[in-house]
Each structure stands twice: as structure tokens, then as C-alpha cells.
């Protein structure tokens, strides 16, 4: 089928959903269920699993119609669910029944998802992680500590990467699971960050049990499965926002416009440079959406993540420099849990502090530049001290 025909098929389906389930009057979950049933949650997924089997570039056609009619941005309501869990489940869940069982409540946001990847001893070197999963009959017993887990306190399900073979080289001994966050042996504690708030959690796994049916992919194949998740994470972080002047840059431009008393030519050019970079990145996202193929997102999604993160920091640094002495006050360092994912969009100073994490979370800028260098440009890898060694012999600390 031609792209034009697919495009009108997507548009027709979206218009029908909007017509039959007015997003401004029906509950969000009902609307999102209708989107899932119509194949508009991820248009490139198979029919019956929230998609229509068309090119992922056509997602923007569906989103445009649904959101213009007042529909929610589902990614904002269940970011890890939509951005990372869904593509991983679609590709690697063991049965179609499980896929459907997980994907539909994920799409409706009834079930929030989180990911249990990073550990205190495994950040950029994720494949070095130590949380163990030991087979016990048709179950797995999991022990370890995870960190930087957003939404763990609200999540029903988690994506877990655990070590099942400590004698194998680090990438070979990992297996990927889905964990019930409400099951026994899973304890979530808030992790306070430099803003004073607790947006993330630590998750302690003490003899948590997972049925083997909830394993994604083969035993020992967890790294390859995790790549599906991570590539989608970077792509989803990098590809959001499509109207000119929206996103973080809007904060700086609005602040600039509201404070003519603070204008100087030097600051003006600094802001224009930031606006230009934001616009060039927006156009790059548009271009990569327009030319996206049916296949999954490639490492070029790393461009968006890299630029977006550095731009966020530069935008808020600009705002702080514009304000000068007015900027060095704060609202409240009382620790509180974050209820919604966008709670951090508080006062400017909070956004400024929060942006320091942007170049660390979801792949540090250093790692992203390695990815661009090695996977996109094809440059040789760096020397690795741990290459080929059994995981248990690799120095850690």
C-alpha cells in the first residue's frame, strides 16, 4: 500500500475516534482505549496491538488530529510506558496474549510503567549491572538495588534488566524481565535530588519472584532486548515538540519578552543563538520523522537527546544570567514526592537546577557522542579493559 493511502487510512481512523469519543467530554482512559482499539497508539504496531501496521512516520498524522481535537499527549501521562515499554513488549513479549494484556492498560494509562535498569554501580556502563536473577522452577528470584527510577511509586509494572550468568562476559549474562511493582520483595524509596524534590526512586529487590512467562527474550539475551528500550528512550526524548518556538526555548523567549528592562545586545544574541539551535533541532526532528522508515528508531535519535539536553541547560543558564541577582533566590527546599511527571516545571530556579540532570539521564552526553561516533559515523570503539572477561572478574567500584 502506498504511503498516501496509509496516511489517509490513519487520518480517517483518527477522525472517527474523535467523532465517536469526544476527548473534551469522555474520560481520558476511555479516549485512549478508543485510540488503542483503532490502532492509533503506535501506528507502526500490528493491528490488534494498538497499531495499523503502517510507517511510524505517520504517527504524527494521528497525533495531530487527536491532539487538535483536545486529546491528551499520552506520552506525558505514561512516558516510560509509551516511549520504552511498548516497543519492547511488542517485540519481545512471549505471547500475543501477554502483549495485549500489557499494552492496552498501558495505552489507557491505567497501568503506569517504570524501568529498573540503572544501579549505584552501573550507570553509563549499564551492562556491568549486579542485580541477580536466579532460576527457581518456573520462577526467577531477584536480588539487588536499582536507582534513578522515575514513577516507581506509581508504577504497576517495571522493565527489569538482571544478571542471570555472572560467569559470562558482561553483555552475555543478562536477561530481561517484566516485574510486578506491587508484588512482595519490591520496596520503593524516594531519592532526593539537588532541587530538594524526590522525582526519582531507589528500588530494592529482596527475593522478588517473577514467573518465567514474564521474561522478555531468551535467557542471556537481555542486552539486545534492552537496546530496543534504550533506542526508543533516546528517540522519544529527542523527538518531542513540533511547533516552532515551543519547548524549553519558550521559557527563555517569554521571559525575555516580559523583561525589557533587562535587555542588552549581548544577551539578545545569546538568546537568538539558542532559539536558532532549538529551531534547527526542531526541523531535524521533523525531517527525521518525515523520512522515518517502518523499522525502529536508529541511533540518530541520539542527536535529539544530545542537543535537547544541552540546550535545556543553556536556556536556563541564559534565564538565570538575564535575571542576575533576582535569580539567586529559591522557593522551597522542603522535600516532597513528585506526583506528576511535569511537576518539575515549577519556578525558573527549580527548572534551572533540574536541567543539570538532562545531560546525565537517558544516556550521558559523553555516551551519546560515543554512540554518534561509533554507530552513525562508524568510528572504531575505544579500548575496553573489560572486553571478553567473565563479569565476576571485572573490577568494580
Amino acid at each position, binding site marked *: 500500500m502506498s504511503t498516501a493511502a496509509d496516511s489517509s487510512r490513519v487520518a480517517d481512523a483518527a477522525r472517527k475516534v474523535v467523532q465517536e469519543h469526544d476527548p473534551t467530554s469522555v474520560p481520558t482512559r476511555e479516549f485512549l482505549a478508543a485510540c488503542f482499539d483503532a490502532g492509533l497508539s503506535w501506528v507502526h504496531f500490528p493491528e490488534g496491538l494498538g497499531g495499523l501496521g503502517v510507517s511510524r512516520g505517520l504517527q504524527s498524522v494521528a497525533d495531530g488530529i487527536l491532539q487538535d481535537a483536545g486529546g491528551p499527549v499520552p506520552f506525558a501521562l505514561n512516558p516510560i510506558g509509551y516511549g520504552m515499554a511498548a516497543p519492547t513488549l511488542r517485540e519481545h513479549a512471549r505471547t500475543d496474549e501477554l502483549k495485549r494484556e500489557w499494552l492496552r492498560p498501558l495505552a489507557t494509562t491505567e497501568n503506569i510503567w517504570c524501568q529498573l535498569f540503572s544501579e549505584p554501580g552501573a550507570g553509563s556502563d549499564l551492562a556491568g549491572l549486579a542485580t541477580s536473577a536466579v532460576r527457581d522452577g518456573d520462577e526467577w528470584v531477584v536480588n539487588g538495588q536499582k536507582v534513578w527510577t522515575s514513577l516507581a511509586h506509581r508504577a504497576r509494572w517495571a522493565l527489569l534488566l538482571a544478571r542471570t550468568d555472572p560467569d559470562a562476559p558482561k553483555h552475555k549474562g543478562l536477561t530481561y524481565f517484566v516485574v510486578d511493582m506491587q508484588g512482595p520483595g519490591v520496596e520503593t524509596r524516594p531519592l532526593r535530588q539537588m532541587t530538594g524534590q524526590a522525582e526519582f526512586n531507589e528500588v530494592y529487590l529482596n527475593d522478588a519472584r517473577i514467573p518465567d512467562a514474564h521474561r522478555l527474550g531468551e535467557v542471556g539475551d537481555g542486552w539486545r532486548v534492552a537496546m530496543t528500550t534504550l533506542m526508543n528512550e533516546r528517540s522519544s526524548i529527542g523527538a518531542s515538540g513540533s511547533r516552532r*518556538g515551543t519547548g524549553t526555548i*519558550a*521559557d527563555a*523567549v*517569554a*521571559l*525575555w*519578552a*516580559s*523583561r525589557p528592562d533587562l535587555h542588552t545586545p549581548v544577551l*539578545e*544574541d545569546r*538568546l*537568538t*543563538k539558542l*532559539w*536558532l*539551535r532549538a*529551531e*534547527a*533541532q526542531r*526541523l*531535524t526532528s*521533523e*525531517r527525521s520523522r*518525515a*523520512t522515518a522508515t517502518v523499522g525502529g528508531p536508529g541511533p*540518530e535519535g541520539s*542527536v535529539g537527546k*544530545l*542537543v535537547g539536553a544541552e540546550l535545556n541547560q543553556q536556556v536556563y543558564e541564559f*534565564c538565570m544570567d538575564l*535575571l542576575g541577582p*533576582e*535569580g539567586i*533566590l*529559591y*522557593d522551597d527546599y522542603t522535600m516532597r514526592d513528585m506526583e506528576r511527571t511535569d511537576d518539575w*516545571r*515549577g*519556578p*525558573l*530556579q*527549580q*527548572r534551572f537546577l533540574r536541567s543539570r540532570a538532562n545531560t546525565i539521564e537517558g544516556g550521558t552526553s*559523553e555516551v*551519546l*557522542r*560515543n554512540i*554518534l*561516533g*561509533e554507530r*552513525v*559515523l*562508524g*568510528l*572504531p*570503539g*575505544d*579500548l575496553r579493559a573489560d572486553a571478553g572477561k567473565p563479569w565476576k572478574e571485572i573490577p568494580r567500584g
Partner: protein
Amino acid sequence: MADQQETRPFVFSDEQRELRTAVRKFAADNADEQTVRRLMESDPGFDAKAWTRLGSELGVLGLSVPEEQGGVGGTLVDQAVAVEELGATLYPGPVFGTVALAIPALVAASDGPVRSELLGPLVEGTRTAAVAVADRAGAFDPAAVTVRAARAGDDWALSGTVERVVDAAAADDLLVAATGPDGVALFAVDATAGGVERTPLTTLDLTRRQATLRFTDAPARLLAGPDEAERVIGHALVVGSVLLAVEQVGASQHLLDLTVEYAKGRLQFGRPIGSFQAVKHRLADMLVDLEHARSAAYHAVWALGDGSDDPALAASIAQATCSEAFSRIAADTIQLHGGIGFTWEYQAQLYYKRAITDAALLGSAEQHRARIARLVLDTASGDGAPSIATG
């Protein structure tokens, strides 16, 4: 190619991909590095026969000329594809004067015998042109016109000097902005006519030559009168800015490919230098700059065709982004090649000089950013500004 008007932004058609392949092959055959070097050190600085083949056989010099004006009726996207590929090899020929400026100016002018007479040979590549319009940051400023036009029977006589006109030394036709009794108009001057004095200049970039033009009662024919000259020249400058941006993208891509290959093959400390993160990360940044430049340039190309954006803003975004990207990528190409990158023998210097030249033509990145500030920041609203904590 007329049905390509409706293509989706950023998506090239199969015909456009074939066009790219054809121009790339032509450039590889006719503008390899040795040829470029030979031509840049001889006169007139390009291979006139190859230029004619580019126009007559490949038909890529006036791709966006409408069919009723004798063109193939393609789009600016088609033209951009060709210019990008010519830019990748620093194709020595009057791309800037003829393809980027003169042909767009002629297309925008009202129909008439002068236009008809000039356009065909330029598109065919049998004649070349230069545009003698002093721009201010890529925009037309009537107050900056330094040539005066006086009536001479049915035609006109031009007097005055225009400095640093790209591709003018070898051009057959000169399009000249001059102030007449009724205001600024655009005239056509035969470059070999009496009263035209051309002083070739030694340029930083030997592959993109310039000359200063001195007119002394030079015979001229009216191309666009005061009622439309500003629109015609403005159109040419915007199209020229966008095609220049695309050329910068083509050259930048060549440099990134070149430098990546070098970093893979050059061994120091027993390993390819591209395996060192200091080198790898600089290459990653070059890639990001190139991707941004490509997106900004293509956006402008499509926006000028489908009216989806303010042409002046789109052109300034493209110019500000591409000038900076090409300059930085060219500088980093020298840096990452080390000593060899600084030599006369190695090609990096040719591209670096083109980058510096292109950045200065039709407005610098800084001038375009200043325009963007006027268009975007001055009209911005303070609504939705983040709250500021007050302690």
C-alpha cells in the same frame, strides 16, 4: 516534474534521487580535486565546455525555470539537489552568479524580450551571468545602490562602480541594479560592451572568483523597472541565500565523510585516532552541526516553494545555521587532520576558504541572527513566562 510541487517537506522523490546521482557523477568526472586545482590556477577559472554540458546535457542550471519560460518546470527542490552536489566538490563554475542569483532574478522579472533573450543561454550553459547588486546582509537595500542609470535613446547608460561581484570576471551578462530618474531598476549589460571595465580580484577562495565592475556610460537594457525591481532583486537574494545554504550543506557533508575516513585510517599510539574520544566527540559535534544545517537548508528550500514559512525568516535561519556549520566543520577538518590539514597539497584548505567565503556572502551568520532577533524576539509575547521564585 511539475507534479513534484506537492511533495512532502524533506522527502525527495525518486526522480530527485536520480538527479542527485547524475549530478554527483558529473561532478566526480569533471571536478575531481586535480581538475579543480588546475582550473582555479588558470583562466577563466572554470571549464566552459563542461559548464555547457551541465546546462545542455544534464539540464541542471535552471531546474526551477517554468516551462512557459523555456525551462523544465521543476521546483526549487530540484535545483537545490543539483547545487548541493556541485557544492560537495567545489565545482568551479559560476553557480553563485548564474544559478543562485541571475536565473532566479530573470524568472521573477516580468515577461519581455530582454528576459527571453538572456534566460535561454544561461539555462543552456552557453553564457554565464553575474549579479551586481550590493546586498546588505542578504537583503536588498535601494540606498546601497552605487550605479546611476540615464536614458540613452530607447535604452540606458549606466555609470558607477560595484565592488567585489562574484563570477563577474568571466561573465557574459551582468545584471546591474542602478538608480534612474524613477528609482532603482534592474538592467542587463553585455559584459563585453564598451564602457564596462572589469578588474579581476585575487580572492581568498580561488574557486569562487570576483571582480570589481566600473561602468562608464555602459549600454544597458531595462530588465525590471522601478515598479518591480525591488521584488525581483529581493526574490533573487532570498533564493540565492537558500541555494548558498544548500551548497554549504553539500561541502560540509563531503568534509565530514573525508574526516571520518581519515580518523579511521590514521594510526597514532598504535590505534586509529578516531577511537580516541577527544577526536570522536568532535566528529560527533560535526555530525550534529551538519544535520542541523541540512534541516535548516531543506526547510527553506521547501518553504520557498510551498509558502509554509516566511521566506525571509526561513532564509535567515538557513544562512545563520549553514554558514556557522560549514565554517566550524571546515575548521575542525583541518584540526582533526593535524599537520597535513594545513598544507597546500591537501584539499582541506580549499574547503576552508570556500566556507569563509560563503559565510561572508549574502550576510554573515551574525547579520542573519540579528534579522531573526527582529522577526522573532521583537514580536514575542511575555505570556507563559516561568514564574520566578522570590525567596
